[in-house]
């Protein structure tokens, strides 16, 4: 195994960005020269004055917002939201505008890279990369079997088609998303309780409660607009339950500060009030709920008075909120949330999700105007088998499925794969647009796991921290330079759209994923499953639903008109019993309480310690956006990396605005500037979760702010295998004090 470059060894070996170049391999200077060349090409093309407008999907997060891209002289000029897009609603967030600039970033990967014996990276040809990867991969599989291979991805239309197909073609079932560090807990909880996810009918709600989630920080443009409409144009009671007065707080009517990781107690206590005071929807519960009596008995002990100490909320406020929700029902809803407070944060996040789904059931709001909506998704038809043969189904269960049976099958828990790497069972791993080693769990554990692998391949547009730990890094072109497989979106309407190629490839030695998969699979010997171009695939996918590529390109987004959603109709619940399961045999079999009940968070602050909460920001959502110059300049100008500390806590510790503090958990110590504010609960500190870059190739985000996963002990939520991203406490002290 060749040596990995760590941030420390990189700094030791050199003093700055010239290091790689002086070591005789590619460096920033070479990259810049390539970039300058690209500039010249762009200038030459300017003479034509040609403009065009291309419909595509943003890639700044997983929302797949529909856009129109305006291209001038072959260069991206501006972007606009597509009004037909359910998520963008015709608008576009700042992160989206910024992420488009990735295409022209000076820090992009330009050539396939191979790690050499001394740990440095050297550019190699695609042919060499394919030959070496194929030879190592086939040897690993021949020796250890196909389950020694795993593929981890951040889901996007192309990788969702090619990733599972490539994994299955190799005979492995180990395909994962990033979910374990995102919303795995709550999606698994909703699947166990109501059979799948739900959405809040924001536009029609009379009361809406957000627990931990902030539309203004983890942005979907259409949601922000809908919330702003609710806030200024209606009588809807908007409640934010969060340790922090987040950036949606200004749109809310009421902020209920809560101790982190205790949302479950809060929801159970509100359920207690609805049941004890007979405010719940009895008809709905009788008809659609399984296990209500057992739940009623269970929550009898969870009074608002009981929850008050745990949550740090007055019992009377909990009672009032329950009464108000009941009065507004069925046009009242606890919003489903995303990563936020119970997507993957605590050991009780799965149980919290179950309780939220159950509380909505007590309100009888499923399928109702202003309530919780369960909608369907459109499906593409079958592809012609002669042109697009599918690899045989792999029966072997995915690594992690046995230990974490509650994880949503479409996600799985990539942390189980990580453990298998450490145990020596998984020996080859591919990543696609996934900075697992920086964001999914403690980076030092990822470093250990990847170090034990015999082959690590990363496909990305930039040299992420995960790429730094790979043996081969394959440079993809940016999202604006490629066509991807067809994207379908469910909901109140069913739409189909495309991430399309808006401009020609900027850097000639970068390639789109579909081409990489086709070429690599041919060298491996499984090319028959990939013997088609992306254009052929897209056309066949669209033909399967009676459309053509030309038609879709012209319209941008097409409403298929196949949604069967109607208000007032109680949806089908795809659970084993067909009912909303307050009691779940499946959950019981996984070793968790079959009845929804109280379960504490794991880490509690000792005297003088703080709870830690983290979150997204409008201009940054994942580590991948911190390499964008325009976005990072906002982060720097507005000091967005700072740790939020309550004013009374700051005073007690002698900390003033912008002071630097040392922050320590059981795992790590770092320094960070402080923002002193009244907008956070005493005893809690907050920091953004995407900073602290340590890849010296990524100049913009390098060493700015803290890397939150460094502070997080490696752990996995029982049942789901989620990362438990906030199960730690911290101490802080002023530097120099």
């Amino acid at each position, binding site marked *: 195994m060749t040596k990995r470059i760590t941030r420390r060894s990189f700094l030791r070996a050199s003093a700055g960005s010239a290091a790689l170049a002086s070591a005789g391999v590619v460096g920033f200077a070479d990259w810049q020269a390539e970039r300058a060349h690209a500039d010249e090409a762009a200038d030459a093309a300017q003479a034509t004055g040609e403009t065009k407008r291309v419909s595509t999907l943003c890639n700044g997060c997983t929302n797949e917002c529909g856009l129109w891209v305006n291209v001038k002289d072959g260069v991206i000029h501006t972007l606009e939201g597509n009004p037909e897009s359910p998520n963008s609603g015709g608008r576009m967030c*700042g992160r989206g505008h*910024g992420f488009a600039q990735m295409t022209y970033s000076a820090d992009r990967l330009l050539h396939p890279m191979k790690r050499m014996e001394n740990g440095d990276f050297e550019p190699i040809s695609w042919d060499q990369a394919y030959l070496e990867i194929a030879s190592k991969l086939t040897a690993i599989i021949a020796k250890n079997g196909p389950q020694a291979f795993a593929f981890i991805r951040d889901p996007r239309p192309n990788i969702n088609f090619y990733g599972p197909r490539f994994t299955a073609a190799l005979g492995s079932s180990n395909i994962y998303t990033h979910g374990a560090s995102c919303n795995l807990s709550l999606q698994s909880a909703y699947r166990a309780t109501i059979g799948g996810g739900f959405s809040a009918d924001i536009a029609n709600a009379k009361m809406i409660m957000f627990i931990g989630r902030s539309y203004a920080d983890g942005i979907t443009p259409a949601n922000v607009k809908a919330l702003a409409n609710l806030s200024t144009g209606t009588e809807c009671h908007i409640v934010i339950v969060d340790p922090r007065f987040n*950036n949606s707080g200004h749109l809310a009517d009421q902020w209920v500060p809560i101790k982190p990781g205790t949302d479950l107690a809060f929801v159970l206590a509100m359920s207690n009030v609805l049941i004890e005071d007979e405010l719940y929807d009895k008809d709905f519960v009788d008809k659609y709920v399984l296990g209500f009596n057992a739940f009623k008995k269970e929550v009898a002990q969870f009074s608002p008075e009981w929850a008050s100490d745990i949550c740090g909320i007055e019992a009377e406020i909990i009672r009032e909120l329950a009464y108000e929700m009941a009065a507004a029902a069925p046009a009242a809803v606890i919003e489903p949330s995303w990563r936020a407070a119970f997507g993957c944060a605590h050991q009780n996040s799965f149980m919290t999700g179950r309780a939220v789904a159950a509380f909505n059931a007590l309100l009888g709001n499923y399928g109702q105007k202003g309530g919780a909506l369960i909608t369907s998704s459109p499906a593409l038809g079958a592809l012609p088998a002669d042109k697009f043969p599918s690899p045989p189904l792999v029966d072997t269960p995915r690594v992690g499925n046995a230990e974490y049976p509650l994880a949503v099958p479409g996600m799985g828990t990539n942390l189980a794969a990580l453990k298998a790497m450490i145990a020596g069972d998984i020996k080859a791993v591919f990543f696609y647009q996934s900075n697992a080693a920086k964001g999914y769990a403690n980076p030092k554990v990822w470093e250990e796991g990847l170090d034990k692998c015999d082959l690590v391949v990363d496909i990305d547009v930039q040299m992420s921290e995960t790429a730094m730990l790979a043996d081969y890094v394959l440079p993809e072109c940016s999202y604006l330079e490629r066509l991807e497989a067809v994207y379908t979106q469910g909901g109140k309407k069913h739409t189909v759209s495309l991430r399309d190629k808006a401009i020609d490839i900027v850097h000639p030695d970068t390639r789109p994923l579909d081409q990489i998969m086709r070429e690599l699979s041919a060298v491996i010997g499984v090319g028959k499953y990939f013997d088609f171009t992306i254009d052929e695939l897209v056309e066949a996918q669209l033909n399967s639903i009676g459309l053509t590529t030309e038609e879709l390109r012209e319209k941008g987004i097409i409403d298929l008109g196949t949604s069967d959603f109607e208000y007032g109709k109680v949806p089908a619940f795809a659970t084993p019993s067909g009912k909303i399961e307050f009691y779940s045999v499946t959950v019981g079999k996984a070793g968790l309480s079959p009845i929804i009940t109280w379960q504490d968070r794991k880490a509690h602050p000792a005297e003088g310690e703080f709870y830690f909460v983290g979150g997204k920001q*409008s*201009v940054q959502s994942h580590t991948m956006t911190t390499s964008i110059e325009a976005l990072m300049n906002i982060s720097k100008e507005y000091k967005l990396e700072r740790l939020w500390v309550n004013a009374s806590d700051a005073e007690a510790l002698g900390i003033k605005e912008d002071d630097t503090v040392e922050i320590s958990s059981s795992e790590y110590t770092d320094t960070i500037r402080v923002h002193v504010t*009244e907008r956070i609960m005493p005893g809690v500190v907050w920091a953004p979760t995407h900073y602290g870059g340590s890849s010296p190739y990524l100049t913009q985000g390098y060493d700015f702010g803290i890397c939150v996963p460094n502070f997080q002990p490696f752990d996995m939520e029982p049942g789901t295998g989620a990362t438990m991203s906030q199960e730690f406490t911290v101490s802080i002290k002023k530097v120099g004090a």
Partner: protein
Amino acid sequence: MARYGMLIDTRRCVGCFACRLACQMKNTLGPKEGFVHFEHLETGAFPHVDAEVIPMQCMHCEDAPCQHVCPTGATHTTEDGVVLVEESKCIGCKYCMVACPYSVRMIEEKSGVVEKCRFCWDDELGGPNNPSCVATCIADARIFGDLDDPESDVSKAIAELGAQPIAGDLTKTKIFYVRG
């Protein structure tokens, strides 16, 4: 002839920076440059707090201090009430930066010109071209239009919501705010 102006509703604004970034791209500004900047106001004490974000940009004053002090006439007002800078006349003396009570003028690095929001003025069109800050606003916190047309969306909203200039009648601005 129109009199262009804008309404910014801070009750709806979530401070997402989309306006600054959309503007930056449309007006081909550098990655550190912005015609829009933001004031963050925190009020109250835990747990009774509020936080307001106020986007600031050229207010297109009818009584524009930057125009009064401009020694070359580079800063001028069009017939439609849009305050513009004529690049060839700007000598980069920065008087306008000092004179602007809203601190919204900035030196554009590539040209040395002291620039500012121009309501996405389009020379070919001879007027504003769908200002990008309005087009992209994810919270619908901005409305643009003709202040002289009582039927325009912006005029109706200003009247209905009682929108006011940010600093009273200091410079007779054409950006009106709904605050809260």
